[in-house]
Structure formats: C-alpha cells, structure tokens
C-alpha cells in the first residue's frame, strides 16, 4: 500500500482503529448492532473467499508433484522431514488451515463479545482478517491470478513477522536437501 510490509500496515490499522473505536458510542444499541453486522459480513466475505479458492483449486486440480523438506520444529532433536505432496493437496491443506484459523478467531471473538462483553475488538477483527485473507498467497494465485513464482512459489515461505527470529526456518525445496531426506525412513515411527 505505502511500500510497507503487511505487518507494519496491520499495526498502523490496529492503532488507528483503536483510536476510532474509542469515539464510537457502543452504548447505542443501533451502533452496536451495526458493528456486529459488520463483523458477520466481513467473516462471510472471508468464508466465501476461501470457498471460492477451494473451488478454483479443485477445478484446476494441479497434480504436479511437490517435494520439500519441512524444517524440524524449534527445540526438537528431530531431523528435518521430507514432505511429498501435490500442488492440489498442498493448496487444499493451506486453505483448510486458514479456514480453521479463521474459525478459531470467530470462536474467540464470540467468547470475548458474548461472554466478556468486549465490543471494541469487533471492529479490528472485521478489518484485519479480511486484509490477511486478501493478502494470502492462495488468494493472490487463484483469485487475483498472479503467477505462482517468486514469492508465491510453493512451498510458501513462512511470513517473516515480528517474531521472525523466533519462528522455525523456511521449508527447503532444493534438490540436494530433498535427496538427502528422501530415504531417511521417518515414517511409521511409533509415538509414545
């Protein structure tokens, strides 16, 4: 938007809306209901967007094999794991994950609003997730029609957020890493 990274933009929006939210008279039941409607509509748009993306994925059904090495989670002594999948399965899994996280957000919001009676987050929560959804890699590829190369090349890199230093490494898809992990025999390990 302004040449800023999405994280900074989000931060600006959060701070801005927090200031605006202070001015909104939430005591007025009409205003409150309008905020609720806004939140619901925003979530419906997000759900529709994800469903549309899923539909597109199923229509394209790109069965090209995708191999990459998933880095070991932080603090575990495990070796990195090879994932062999298809672009279709990968995209479907990604949509599912984002859908699931959105549902989690809605459940949290429902708890906050209905049980603890917080109203301010309604506004922030109807803007930020919508923005995230519109900026997600899958929407860029399947809705906006960007070519799946460069930053949009699968496997997607984990977004370098503010916590970037703490997060796990990015998945590798170069031939050498894949070949090293391919026959490691990681499958079927019994977990206790």
């Amino acid at each position, binding site marked *: 938007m302004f040449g800023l990274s999405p994280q900074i933009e989000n931060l600006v929006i959060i701070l801005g809306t927090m200031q605006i939210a202070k001015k909104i008279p939430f005591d007025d039941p009409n205003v409150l209901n309008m905020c609720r409607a806004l939140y619901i509509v925003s979530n419906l748009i997000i759900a529709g967007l994800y469903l549309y993306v899923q539909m597109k994925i199923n229509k394209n059904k790109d069965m090209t094999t995708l191999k990459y090495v998933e880095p070991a989670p932080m603090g575990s002594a495990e070796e990195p794991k090879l994932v062999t999948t298809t672009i279709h399965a990968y995209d479907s899994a990604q949509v599912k994950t984002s859908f699931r996280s959105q549902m989690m957000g809605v459940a949290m919001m429902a708890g906050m609003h209905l049980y603890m009676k917080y109203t301010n987050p309604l506004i922030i929560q109807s803007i930020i997730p919508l923005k995230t959804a519109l900026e997600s890699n899958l929407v860029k590829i399947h809705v906006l029609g960007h070519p799946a190369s460069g930053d949009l090349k699968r496997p997607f890199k984990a977004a370098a957020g503010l916590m970037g230093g703490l997060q796990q490494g990015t998945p590798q898809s170069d031939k050498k890493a894949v070949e090293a992990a391919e026959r490691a025999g990681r*499958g079927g*390990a019994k977990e206790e």
Partner: protein
Amino acid sequence: MANFLKNFVGTKSSETAVPSADSDFADFADAPSPTPVAFDSAGATLGSPGATATPFTKWYNVHERHSLSEFKAEGAILLAMVLVFTLHFFGTRLNKAKAKAWAKAHTPILASEFSLVGFGGVPQSDVSPDSIFKQKSLFEFSTYATGRQNVAFTDVKLTLKKRFNPLMTFVETASGFFFESFAVPQDIAEAITYPFDGREAAIVPAMPGAAELRTKDTKSTYDGFVWAIVNKENMKKLREDRYDLSITFTKDTTKLPNYLTVMSESAEITDTLLTNDLITAVQKAGDLFEYLIISDQPIDKPTKIDETTPRKRMYLKYRLPSDNNYDMLSPLFNVFLRFPDHLAASAHFRAEVLRKVRSVRDELVKTIQKNDEENKAEERALERDKARKAKRDAELSSMDAKTQKKFLEKEREKQMRKQSKRQTMRA
C-alpha cells in the same frame, strides 16, 4: 399430611384445633388426633354402599385425571427411538448390500484364483457370494482366500461408512475437516496378500504326496524391496504413516496418469514391475484407486532387531464406487491376485541394485544395534554406581565414630580436589 387429614375429615377439625403455646408445633400436636366426626358428613367422599349412583369418581378414573399432554417427553423419546431404530435397520441393510455387491463382483475372480475362498474351511467347487464374508461389525466385513501357487493366503477387508449411525458419520466427517488426524469416513476395500516367498514347506501342512508336488515349484522366492503405485492425494499421509514407504524415492513416470506416482527404491525395480497389465488396470480404476504396495518392511518403524526381518506382503487399497458397479475395479483386483506370479518369475535383480536396497536396511539395523548398546552401557554404569555406593555405605557403617568422621572428611577433600581440577580444566 395435616392438610390432607383436614380435608379428609372436613373443615371442622381446623376449627376445633386449639392453638398451643408453641405455635410452630401446632400442626403436629393436633393433627394426629382429629375429633371424630359423624359418619354421614364424610359419607359422600368415602363412597358408602348406599351411594352407588356414582361408583367411580375422579379418584378412580385415570383418563379424567391425566391427559396425553402430560407425556410429551415420553412421546419425543419414543419418536427418537423409532428414528434411531429405522436408521439402524436401513443403515445395516445398506452396508450389507454394499458388501454383497462387492462379493458378487469378486467371488468369481477369487474362486478362479484360489482353491479355498471364505471361512468355510473346505474347498468347494462353486462358492456363493453370500457366504464369503464374515461380518466383524456393522461396518466391517472380511474374507479370506488360500490355496494358490506362490501365495500363502489373501485377506480382504471392507470398511464401510457407519451408515447405521448418521450422527456419528457426520461428527466424524466434521472432525476430519478440522483435524487432520481424524480420517474422513469412506467405503474402503483393503486386500493383503502374503506370498510364500519360498517357505511353502514351513507353512503348508504336510500331506501325503504333497512333498513331490512341492519340489517342482520352489521358485516362489523373490528379492525383497519396497515398491508402490500411489494415488498422489494420499502420498503425504502414507509416507508419514508407513515406514516401508518412507525409505523409497517418489518418482513420477510418464507411463502413468498424472494423479498417480511410483514409490520405488530403484529405477530398475520400477521397470520390471510396472507391467502393461498393471498400468491398464490401475488406469481403469481411476480416482478410486488408493495404493498398491509391494513391501518387505514393516509398517511401523522397527525398534528391535527382530522386527527388521523382512516380511513380504502386498497391499491393495481402493475406495468403493457409490453405484456398486465394479466393472472398472475388478480388473485391478484380478491383477493384484496374479501379481505374485509375476514377482516370483521376474523380481530378481542385479547385485548392484540389491546392494543399494540392502544398504538402507542394514543402516537401520546398525542404528538399532547402536541404540541397544548405548542403553546397555547406561544401565551398566548405573549398576556400577549403585554397587559402589552400597560398598561405601557398608564400610561407613562398620566404622566407629572417629574413623567415620575421618572417612567423610577424606571423601569431601577428594571431591573438592576433583571439582577444582574440573574447573581449571575448563578455564
């Protein structure tokens, strides 16, 4: 109680009740001793023989005291029960019909390949499709076939949706959407073939005359390897769930449609096994095909040495078509049943190929051995420490106070010296 008695004896008793000093206990004090009333005054309610004109009052007429509207909850329960039972009835019927359709399509194939099909125990000339399945539960059916060259036996298992419990199916489907660890319910057929691999003598019961027959066909051995054709949709999960597939390379071939891939340990193995028959059969099965695996390794990653001994198996899995039309799937099953012949005939590879295959297995054995040894060494060290401590305690307890003190001091000094040494070394 007091109230009831009051009503029973009429209003008079309350009038005659004398308020006592303790008004709280008035009821209990007075109620048990109502003043006797004249019989006539209560005659109507008691229904004396004289008043037979109204023999049944509300007291006796159940239909006047109660109405159906009081039993709404019971009605709802009954309705739910009827619903559950009908669903159960139709669901089990549907599942049975589905299993029967499979049996109808596949019994001729099984009967032409095996001398014994089903759990009858006696080879029959014509096997009826109704009898081959054993119902393990309302949604699991299994059958068994044996008596064939190169094959010890074949197990087939159908796992169907829980049609008799739509609520459960719905919950399972929903949780399958939200959590990857839950599998979405599907109608699945799984077949496992256990090839003889040259061990007929150990498995087949000895019978007169069988020995001569056997000497001719001892060539059922084939080399151990892992090889599979897999539907790409599930290859990620398969690789995670099964040890045997996780030691293979995944390589697409142009011979197969783009939704299928081959997992193999060597290109030469793929060339030998990917026959034209197999390709056409798998292609015909289409999207319903899940995997065909030929393996000599266990599904779970071995943790002990004796778990690493190769056990040769063939696995086939496909989803059942919803219209019960098996024209497209039975060729695949046929190829699967006959595949052990192909394996015994041609799955013998060059030494270079096998060396590559074996190196992975040897490596696993080596790591297991190393782990075992490490564990043992740790145990031994622990035991040694224990023995040393016991010895020291025994020594200490046998000394008198003075020597004990000296001993402890010495020990402490020793420890101090050790510590300081360690510190200087680190610095």
